[in-house]
């Protein structure tokens, strides 16, 4: 199960990066989503979505998010647009 703290750790890690040379962020995730995603978990994904879009638009740092589907999980193709709406809209989310 995807834990709330994991999403927070990604955000925390990204926020520590101060490099002016940073060109690309790649996040590869293996997650098993429950049938009903908690509102708080959704909020964290939205925060991550906003942060990554901000990296791209403000600093020209291209983010790329890759999902790796696992057995027993919900179809990520259904959830990705709601969890990372802006990144999905911009075509930066890849389902493997």
């Amino acid at each position, binding site marked *: 199960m995807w834990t709330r703290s*994991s999403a927070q750790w990604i955000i925390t890690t990204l926020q520590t990066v101060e490099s002016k040379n940073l060109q690309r962020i790649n996040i590869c995730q293996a997650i098993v989503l429950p049938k009903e995603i908690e509102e708080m978990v959704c909020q964290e994904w939205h925060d991550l979505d906003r942060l990554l879009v901000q990296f791209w638009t403000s600093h020209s740092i291209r983010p790329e998010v890759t999902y790796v589907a696992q057995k027993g999980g919900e179809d990520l193709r259904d959830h990705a647009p709601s969890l990372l709406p802006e990144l999905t809209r911009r075509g930066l989310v890849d389902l493997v």
Partner: protein
Amino acid sequence: MSSSSFPPEILDLIVDHLHDKPTTLKTCCVVSKSWVPRTRKHLFAHVEFRASESNIEMWTRAFPDPSNSPAHHTRTLSIHGIPVVTATDAGVESWIRPFHNVEHLRLEHLDRASLVPFHGLSPAVRSLRLSHTAAEVFHLVCSFPLLEDLALIAPYPESDGDEWNAPLASPRLTGSLDLRTFRGPRPVVRRLLDLPGGLHFSEITVLLANDDNESLTNLVSRCSGTLEFLTILCLPLSMVSSTPATGQFLTVTRGYRHVSDCFS
């Protein structure tokens, strides 16, 4: 045309064009003695010892005289799963030391082997890949002054209680760091942060797979001044204990296929 009248630089050019065709190179090797040195340069550019001591026996039997060994042509040396060496093994020097021009060194699954014989093996080592993260790894790291790229892929937990005396000098480490410890990255991160030369990686790959991600965050933060590419691999805790699933994840993750070897 006899080989004596054939300009050697032309022959070298022809052989160089065949650098990625090992079967053809082997055929060239038996054409003439004068063809051997140049073909060896390419045939032995990548040497791999894998999972059997007989590999080493075959090597030493084929090249009993280290001074005549083609090991000096080797740029990439990989040793996998052989209980290779102990620090006191008298035969070690004879087959390892001739690899003194290696630039890329991969030592995997040498869990009970001493790394001492590899210290300073080649001053030209620029990339090092290891599958364990004990304190002695970092003394090996520091024995290569030009080291740029470091990969530490450790599927097993490492104790934080090891005696750790940081080396007095360390390479600048300006290339890539690939750090994948599946539980408890704190000891290895602590040792990395202790390196006296500092960390200047331009590319970092870390695995967030446990409840000790704070140390990884510190690591990324320490390199944030030079960082150009950041890859974060996320693995749910439930998958950490399930090696097939972990292997599957790392296998299908683009660009990291080789990591699945750790779980086979």
